[in-house]
């Protein structure tokens, strides 16, 4: 029975997890810069194509390029041991445009959704950040946020980042 408690979840993951897996980002450089403005607003459970995953909702934009579509955007969870990159899908956020009236960039689609299967992340506390990869040059820009992700065996939560 003890064996079952430890083996059954692993088998279940192999069979059921399709959405929310982290992706490989070759050559990714996760060095904090001030080129990106971003925030995560919400972490909630959602059912996508029959699978329950966590949906991270937030917004971001790179400040030094008028054309935001030049970039692939990833949500990053990182700590001393692990890096996880999750693909994002753009979402409309009219409130961001209103919040940054001085920015001349088109911020209509500055929102994002990322889907996370929590079983794919090792337990621990993670820094949350956004990684931009220029589609043409392959250049990276990374910026960390003021929230952290805490993953335990049975739970996943976002917390305000503590002092360094």
């Amino acid at each position, binding site marked *: 029975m003890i064996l079952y*408690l430890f083996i059954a979840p692993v088998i*279940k993951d192999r069979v*059921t997890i399709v959405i929310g897996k982290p992706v490989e980002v070759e050559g990714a450089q996760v060095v904090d810069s001030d080129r990106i403005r971003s925030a995560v607003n919400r972490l*909630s*459970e959602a*059912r996508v194509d029959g699978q329950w995953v966590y949906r991270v909702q937030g917004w971001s934009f790179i400040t030094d390029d008028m054309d935001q579509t030049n970039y692939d955007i990833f949500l990053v969870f990182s700590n001393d041991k692990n890096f996880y990159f999750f693909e994002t899908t753009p979402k409309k956020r009219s409130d961001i445009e209103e919040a940054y009236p001085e920015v001349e960039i088109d911020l209509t689609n500055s929102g994002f959704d990322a889907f996370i299967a929590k*079983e794919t992340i090792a337990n621990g506390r993670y820094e949350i950040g956004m990684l931009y990869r220029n589609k043409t040059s392959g250049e990276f820009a990374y910026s960390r946020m003021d929230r952290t992700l805490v993953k335990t065996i*049975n739970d996943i939560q976002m917390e305000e980042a503590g002092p360094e």
Partner: protein
Amino acid sequence: MKAISEFFDRFIQSKAGRLIYPLLAPLLFGLYPSLYFYTKNATMVMIASYWRVLSVYLLLILVVYLVSLVIHKFNGLKAANAAAAFLLFFNFYGMLFTELSNANLFRVEHLTMLPLFLFLAGYSVWFLNRIKAKKAASIWRWVTLVSAVLIAITILKLIPIEVKKAQTQRAAAREQIGTVNAAAGNSPDIYYLVFDEFSGLEAMREYFNSTEVDGFKAFLEGKGFFVGEKVFGSSNHTVHQMAVRMNYNEYPYVQGDQPIWHEALANARGIAYLDAKGYTTMVFEEISMLHPTLPKIKADYLYRYNYNSGEDLGTLFDEYGMLVADTTMAYAFERLYKVGNPDDLMHHDFLFFTKERLPNLEDIPGPHFVYAHLMIPHQPFMFDRNGALVDSAFFRNWNYYEGQYIYTMKYIEELVTDILKNADPDNPPVIILQSDHGARIHEDNKELSGFPQDMLRNILFALYLPGYDTSTIAQDENPINTLPIVFNHYFGDNIPLMEPNLPGVDND
């Protein structure tokens, strides 16, 4: 006394008795947890909630016992013990799941834990089948005795709480009746019930091929309603439409005029008129869910969507029902009975509160004017056609509109039935069923395409007007005429009526 004892002896020895009396053990054992949770929360929970959970439990226990009887070849005692064992796992699954999950020792998930618990329950049933009859009888006696003692102690604790609760409720009702002025006359109660985004029947028939709308129309006509199928509002804006109809004044539909409509609805002429006629005016509204800047609508009683009624919602899975379910194996299916988002939950509860409350206004002096504006079948599309909860991920997916629409028809049928059932037959109420606008499935809708764009303003329009010759009402009646029709007939007014709104494709 001796006769009773002999009767029981004979009953227990009889063939039927040997099958029936062992049921006592699983019955007492299975019912105890729900009684315990009720007693613990009795000051906050209506007893109606407990009766609903109790009836579900009775059914469950009976089914489990019958299945167990078959498994144990109609040996009553062994079947009862096995049923109690199953109920042990059933009743404590959710509680153990939560504790194990919080302990964070290993991964705890329903997909793996529920099969394990079912296996353990099955093993227990098998094991209990193997023990000798004498031991089975001894186990049965202990289970019955302990459960009976626990239930007796719990009931003793519960009685004073229930007595005090009843006293408080009676005192509150007396106080409320004393504070409201007695209204004059023998005027009928008037219910103006608005179901936001309820498409006209024709569009549902044509686009969704929904045959249910014909049953709904037949139901309404069977009750004596006039049903207008070609009725169009003058815009697709909720507050504009309700300001227009509540004031019987066609405010121009100009973007930016929202503050004017807000003011007009908050200080509605129709409500003020009825107030002056001696009506107790009551508003149950969810418009402020989406229009938070809407000022409070002036009425004697205003219930907004975030109103915490503390009253019975009439549903199995109210706060208490969920509390009990969360401790049992039902917890594995919590997504089917729980609404996660607090706003969605308030909306869910408000719908059921309103449905229970509207037919039961006897604690408030009449005649009553009730304006209820409910955000259904409007988003969130949380109900399927049978009233079961949809996955919250789909609450904003238009593919779920039709299911919620069908459920809304059932909701209206039940509400209308209850209002008419509780009404004074010598002074029946006026009931107005409407929507503000139709289903706004625009051309650029992501999920649904090809919805006829000239039907976006086609609305629900049904009137129950006792003593009124409804053949004089046009199929394409202008909804602005709703209150004038009522006031002209019942109060002898002479408010001019407006020409119908025409269908058409709008830019808004």
